[in-house]
């Protein structure tokens, strides 16, 4: 009797299967580790962005205001406490210029818990002083004890550092009232300008290479260079920006110089992804358009580019996400340390979110670490939003040809 070709008893070498399983796990393990580390980092940052504080006001009683109070009311009460008369306070609140200065020096914020009860408004002045800064859990454990030990002009608050006026407050030497308003506006300015420059150039280059110079040496040379440029460390672009845009062209440490530098950084990435998207449009589409008597320009702009648009936009969003997080090149081209005003145009000084975070982290006061944590959270939120948008676009407009 001959041996059957397939027998159940043979099964196959159990060791082979075992080794395969081990290998598969070994390959996945680092990924899980990385994910676990990232989520730990995120949670830690989140935890650090809350703290329990005892703060002493230098003037008067430290007062809190119930939830329904308008912030103007709270501010007025705070002014009266500081010794202004009724009329003076009224005049200061009416004058928009004075009001802005007041809001820069006083943070009117909803605190999650205070010694006078939960969810109350607190006005923090620029001369207020921190007595104690405790991590969230420790602070909550000692809450009653701290509340009992409050001295004259002192208040106990559970401070969420990432709160609604964090986005509009100006940077300050006092961490209690420091915010990232200027950095947010600066980022919007720089990123918008950079994309306005990088998108036409990047997509244009991709179209040129993919639709006009299909074959040929020029195409190959540019291809190699683009891929190399996409991998150049960003600080090198910063040096280039410093030497060329800031010094040679004389733009100085302005938004324009920063936008041009970031545009240089973004162009290779945008070009490479846009090329992939254009290449994914099947040749039959171009043939159809040509056969209908379209010129090459019409083929590109009426058929190929619209068909490739989802891919192109995804690439643009991903490169925007990268540009938002760039601190190194902007430190070189002069994102300034302390800018107490909103940028007024492309030629004004600026700072951006990552640079602002970097500066906060390097401050000696421990609360700046909390401000930085809040800033990092903002940045992570913006980045996640961009990545989700890219993911959505990619799935929503994916085409089967």
């Amino acid at each position, binding site marked *: 009797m001959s041996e059957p070709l397939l027998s159940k008893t043979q099964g196959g070498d159990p060791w082979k299967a075992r080794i395969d399983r081990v290998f598969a796990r070994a390959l996945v393990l680092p990924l899980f580790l990385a994910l676990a580390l990232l989520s730990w980092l995120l949670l830690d940052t989140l935890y650090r962005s809350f703290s329990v504080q005892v703060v002493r006001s230098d003037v008067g009683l430290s007062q809190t205001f119930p939830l329904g109070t308008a912030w103007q009311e709270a501010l007025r009460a705070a002014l009266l406490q500081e010794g202004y008369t009724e009329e003076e306070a009224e005049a200061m609140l009416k004058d928009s210029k004075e009001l802005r200065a007041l809001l820069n020096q006083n943070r009117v914020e909803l605190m999650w818990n205070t010694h006078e009860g939960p969810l109350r408004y607190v006005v923090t002045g620029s001369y207020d002083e921190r007595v104690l800064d405790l991590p969230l859990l420790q602070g909550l454990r000692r809450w009653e004890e701290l509340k009992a030990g409050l001295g004259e002009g002192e208040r106990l608050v559970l401070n969420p550092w990432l709160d609604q006026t964090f986005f509009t407050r100006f940077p300050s030497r006092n961490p209690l009232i420091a915010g990232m308003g200027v950095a947010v506006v600066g980022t919007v300015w720089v990123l918008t300008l950079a994309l306005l420059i990088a998108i036409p150039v990047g997509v244009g280059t991709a179209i040129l290479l993919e639709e006009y110079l299909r074959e040929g040496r020029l195409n190959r040379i540019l291809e190699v260079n683009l891929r190399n440029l996409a991998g150049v460390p960003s600080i090198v672009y910063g040096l280039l920006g410093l030497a060329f845009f800031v010094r040679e062209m004389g733009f100085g440490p302005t938004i324009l110089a920063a936008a041009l530098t970031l545009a240089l950084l973004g162009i290779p990435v945008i070009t490479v992804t846009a090329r992939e998207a254009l290449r994914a449009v099947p040749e*039959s*589409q171009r043939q159809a358009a040509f056969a209908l*008597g379209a010129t090459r320009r019409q083929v590109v702009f009426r058929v190929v580019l619209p*068909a490739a648009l989802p891919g192109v936009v995804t690439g643009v969003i991903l490169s925007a996400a990268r540009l938002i997080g760039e601190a190194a090149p902007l430190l070189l081209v002069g994102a300034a340390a302390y800018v107490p005003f909103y940028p007024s145009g492309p030629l004004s000084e600026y700072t951006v979110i990552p640079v602002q975070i970097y500066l906060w982290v390097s401050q000696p006061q421990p609360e700046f670490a909390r401000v930085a944590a809040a800033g990092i959270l903002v940045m992570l939120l913006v980045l996640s939003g961009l990545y989700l948008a890219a993911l959505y676009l990619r799935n929503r407009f994916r085409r089967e040809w």
Partner: protein
Amino acid sequence: MKLEILQNHETVRTAPVPEAEALVDVRHLNLFYGDKQALFDISVRFPKNQVTAIIGPSGCGKSTLLRSLNRMNDLIPGVRVTGEVLYEGVNVYDPQVDPVAVRRHIGMVFQKPNPFPKTIFENVAFGLRLMGVKGSELEDRVVEALKRAALWGEVQDIFKKQSGLRLSGGQQQRLCIARAIAVEPHLLLMDEPTSALDPIATQAIEDLILELKSRYTVVIVTHNMQQAARVSDRTLFMHLGVLVEEGPTEELFTKPKHPYTEAYITGRFG
């Protein structure tokens, strides 16, 4: 039977088309891809308002001949053409003739349906928009083209909303035909238009070709000899870049004169 490239072959012609009846007159056409010659001294006339089929085994240059009629081969780098293709008396390879204009006058349908990822309306309107047709005239001509392509009944409720890519394969191909005939070309080139379709869709397309014959001159490349026999008035048989034989379809299929033609249509090679 031993097959070779026919050297200096004189095309066998049955009932040749008189010059007056020809819409397209190909004269001594040679075509090279780089150093490789793909078409050898082809001379043939395509009669007006008739269907001419081009048959032959793979790689015989059927599609190349078809594409050289509307200069689609120009898009391939390294293509060189000698000889003349007279379309309504004008040589389309004349240096003063714009290839884009040639393609606007000659419609083309491809092997695989290739509608644009746009609505059915926008698909058909594409060529018209290139010609600058606008407004109600655009709309009328789109509807007219859809009717002539026998697609109107199926899409009249949805043609402004639905993407052309969401139609079935046969419908897509008829959409491509509608797109090609919307600009009123005199000549319609079809490059194996049914090879990607099922038999029912194929029959719809074949019926359509017979109907289109009254308005357009059709040149169709096909792999399928039965199809050539069903739809065409004249047939060209090509072999390795050489036009071996041409004549009325009936004659060519029943009384082939060249041994290669006979061998091919009886299925001894191909």
